[in-house]
């Protein structure tokens, strides 16, 4: 057990500068997919809350399909499914993108969290108090100003508790990257487990590290809620 820790403490945490592994990759995957998912989710949430059916329907179909299938299947679809098509092989740009496991996992994670985040944000947008919107209209605000200054700041704040849940779930979902050969924390744990045949120690270390990140995130979001949701806290 001591040997395992001596041999593997660095890969567990950050690996080497040239080949980062473990915790660093897990955090990077989490942050990057959440960032892309967030950028995707804000306009999609506005579209989903729209009263025009032809605007909201495509977004509804997107979230329905993503939320109705396992992330593992989505990852397999992007990683081995898309790459098996002939036109992907013959298009250089697509070929180089989908050949890289890291790109595929990042795309799958971003699309996945984007769908869940869209649902959370559009729920918050729809729950905007009617009076706030009427007051903004009475001020003569344009549609863009209305969204920029009134609806989005208020809705994103109210979505914070549900969004913090999604962030934790995304952290947990990054473990799937290990199945696509990305050297994240779980992948290092798997290597360590098979090298020393100590599954409890190897996976236990990973579990403790994940637990620490989860607690850190929960603490961070509690701070954020105190800052941005102070008017709603009891």
């Amino acid at each position: 057990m001591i040997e395992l820790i001596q041999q593997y403490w660095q890969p567990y945490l950050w690996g080497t500068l040239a080949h980062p592994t473990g915790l660093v990759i897990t955090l990077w995957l989490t942050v990057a997919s959440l960032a892309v998912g967030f950028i995707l989710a804000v306009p999609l949430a506005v579209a989903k809350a729209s009263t025009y059916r032809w605007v909201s329907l495509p977004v509804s179909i997107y979230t329905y399909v993503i939320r109705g299938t396992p992330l593992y299947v989505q990852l397999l679809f992007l990683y081995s499914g898309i790459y098996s098509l002939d036109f992907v092989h013959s298009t250089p740009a697509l070929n180089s993108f989908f050949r890289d496991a890291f790109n595929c996992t990042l795309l799958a994670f971003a699309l996945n969290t984007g769908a869940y985040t869209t649902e959370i944000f559009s729920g918050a947008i729809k729950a905007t108090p009617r009076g706030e919107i009427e007051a903004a209209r009475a001020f003569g605000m344009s549609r863009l100003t209305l969204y920029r200054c009134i609806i989005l700041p208020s809705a994103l704040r109210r979505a914070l508790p549900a969004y913090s849940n999604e962030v934790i779930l995304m952290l947990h979902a990054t473990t799937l990257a290990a199945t696509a050969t990305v050297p994240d924390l779980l992948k290092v744990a798997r290597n360590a487990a098979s090298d020393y045949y100590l599954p409890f120690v190897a996976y236990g270390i990973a579990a403790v590290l994940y637990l620490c990140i989860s607690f850190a995130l929960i603490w961070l979001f509690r701070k954020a809620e105190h800052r941005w949701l102070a008017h709603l806290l009891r």
Partner: protein
Amino acid sequence: MSFEGYGGQLWNGTIETIQLSLLSLLVAFVMGLAGAAAKLSPNRWLSFPASCYTTLIRGVPDLVLMLLLYYSAQDWLNKLTDALNQPQIDIDPFLAGVCVLGFIYGAYFTETFRGGVMAVPKGQIEAGAAFGLTRWQVFRRILFPQMMRFALPGISNNWQVILKATALVSIIGLHEVVRAAQDAITGTSAKGAYHAFFFIAVVGVIYLILTTLSNFLFMALEQRYSAGFRRPEL
């Protein structure tokens, strides 16, 4: 469409997925009721371990827990059989999957049920006791039916998560629908690589059908448990 001769395998995999999720749901449901009872108990020796259970399990990714529990249990079993000079016993992946999924999602169900129980007005339980009902009768006739109404959205959510988490069990070697598709991809790779795209898409559609059907089921259940309760009209 004969799915290149792999239709039967996919069908069996789908049945295996459904069985696995239903049995895991049963285990998680029972664990959740027991956990909620322990967590709400005034006895610290019961509530503290239950709090640890929900906090630790919900803070660690399900895939990490799955690998940790499955491989550690097998490791310990091997050591035990070695010590007793018995032949090695391999843990059945199906049984392991049911136990592990049930154990993990039992923690989520504990929180769902705890919220449901706390939402039932205390006066009703006191009234039941005043009528001379036993604790079991209070649970069976007053607490459970009302708790279910509050807990149903959470249960529905947890069920969808369990159903999608069964895809992960293929990683510990169970022959459910994702594994069946992977076998089909390996078997048909000579006939053209695009089969990977096709079979993974089929699995996605199967999951989509399963989640859609369970959505309808839960809508019906929600109606049943909302009997005698009218939604406030906005």
